[in-house]
C-alpha cells in the first residue's frame, strides 16, 4: 500500500469515526481508534476538512473534540425535515450567561452585582437548559453556590473550550476580568 493509499484509508476511517461518534470526539480517542499519532490525526482532520469544502457537511472543533455537522448554509433545508433548534436565549439570559462564562466560578450575588439586576430567574433557566451547573460552594458566610458553564454550553455556542470565548477589544475578556489566582489553572 502506498503512503497516499494509506492516508486515504485513514481519512475515510476518520470520517466514519466522526460520523459514528455522534457528538464531539476528543483528538486522543480519534488517534487511538486510527492507531496513529495525534499529530497525524490532526493532519488527517485538516485533509478531511479540505475534502469537505464542496460538500454539505463540515468538521467542527467543539467542546474539546471534533464533530461532523451540517454547513450553516443548508439550514433551511434541514429545518424543513427536522425540528428547529431550541429557542435562542433572551438578551438578559445571554448577559447572565456571559458573566458566568467569563467569571466562573461565580455566585448569584456576584452575577447580580455585575448586571445590576436580579438574575435568579435567568440562572434557573440556564441551569434547566443545562448551559450552566453548580460547581461548588464559595467558602464563607452562607457558603453560596458557585456556578460554571457546561459542555452543553460549549456546544451551544460552537466553542472549542473556555479559552475559545470571544475576545473583546483585542484582549481576552478573561484576562481583563480575571480575578482568578494563578493557581487555578485547571483550564483546558
Amino acid at each position, binding site marked *: 500500500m502506498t503512503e497516499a493509499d494509506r492516508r486515504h484509508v485513514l481519512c475515510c476511517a476518520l470520517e466514519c469515526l466522526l460520523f459514528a461518534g455522534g457528538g464531539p470526539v476528543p483528538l486522543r480517542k480519534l488517534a487511538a481508534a486510527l492507531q496513529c499519532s495525534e499529530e497525524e490525526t490532526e493532519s488527517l482532520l485538516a485533509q478531511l476538512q479540505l475534502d469537505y469544502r464542496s460538500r454539505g457537511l463540515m468538521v467542527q472543533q467543539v467542546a474539546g473534540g471534533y464533530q461532523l455537522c451540517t454547513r450553516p448554509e443548508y439550514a433551511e433545508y434541514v429545518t424543513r425535515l427536522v425540528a428547529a433548534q431550541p429557542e435562542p436565549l433572551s438578551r438578559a439570559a445571554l*448577559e447572565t450567561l456571559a458573566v458566568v462564562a467569563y467569571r466562573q466560578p461565580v455566585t448569584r450575588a456576584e452575577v447580580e452585582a455585575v448586571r445590576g439586576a436580579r438574575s435568579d430567574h435567568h440562572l434557573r433557566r440556564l441551569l434547566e437548559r443545562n448551559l450552566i451547573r453548580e460547581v461548588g460552594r464559595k467558602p464563607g458566610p452562607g457558603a453560596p453556590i458557585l456556578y460554571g458553564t457546561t459542555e452543553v454550553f460549549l456546544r451551544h455556542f460552537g466553542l472549542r473550550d473556555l479559552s475559545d470565548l*470571544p475576545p473583546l477589544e483585542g484582549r481576552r475578556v478573561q484576562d481583563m476580568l480575571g480575578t482568578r489566582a494563578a493557581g487555578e489553572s485547571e483550564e483546558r
Partner: protein
Amino acid sequence: MSDGRSPIVRVAGFEGPVQELVRRAHAGEVDLREVDLSSMVRSYLDALGPEVDLEEATEFLWAAAVLVELKSKLLLPPKPSPPEAVGEEEAADLEERLRQRVEEYRVFREAAEALAALEAVQRRVFTRPPDEASAGELPLVGLTAEDLFAAFRRVLERSEQRVEEVPPEGVTVADRMQAILATLASSPQGVLFEDLFEPASPRIVIIVTFLALLELVRRRRVRVAQTEPFGPIRLYAGGRDG
C-alpha cells in the same frame, strides 16, 4: 455589528454615525453627562423626510435607547450591593465606582452580543441525532424491547390491584441486579422472565427489578432468548459463553 446605514447625529463634541457615538460612550471617550440626548432625538425626528427608512429608524431608536440607559446609569446612584459584595468594595468615591460598574457591565454586554452571534451560527448547524443503527451496542438476541415490555406488562397487570406504593427501604437497582444474578447462577437451564418478578411485590420493586434486568442485559451479564415468536422469554446468566 450593523455596518449598513447608521444615522448621522450631531451633538456637543461629536458628529458622526450614532453607532459610533454609542461606541465612544461605551469606551468612555464621550462623557454622556454632557450630551443633550433629547435634542439629539428631536433633531433626528425633525430631519426625517416623508419616506422613513424603517431599518434606519429602528437602528436610531435602538442606539438612542442604549444611550439613555447608559446615561441614566451614570447619573443615578447604584442599586445597593448584595451583601457579600459589600465588604470587598474599597472605599472609592461614588463616581469612580459608578464608572467601574458601567464599564464592567458594558464589557459583559458586548460579550453577550458576541455570544448571540455565535449562537445564531450554531443554530444553523445540525449534528447527527442518536439513531437506531448505533443502538446495536445492546445485544438483545432476537428480541425487541416490545417483547420485554409485553412481558413486563403482564407482570404489572398481576400487581395492578395494589393501591399505594410506599417506596420500600433499600430496594435499589444494584440490589435487584445482585438478586437476579444469584437466581440465574443457580439455574443453568435459565429462568422464565416472569419468574423474576414476585407478583405480590409493590410496583416500584417490579420497576426497579425490570431496570436492573435491562442494565444487566446492557452489561451483557444476562442473556435473553426466545425459542419461538411470542414464546416464553428465558434468561440466562453470562451471555458470552453461549
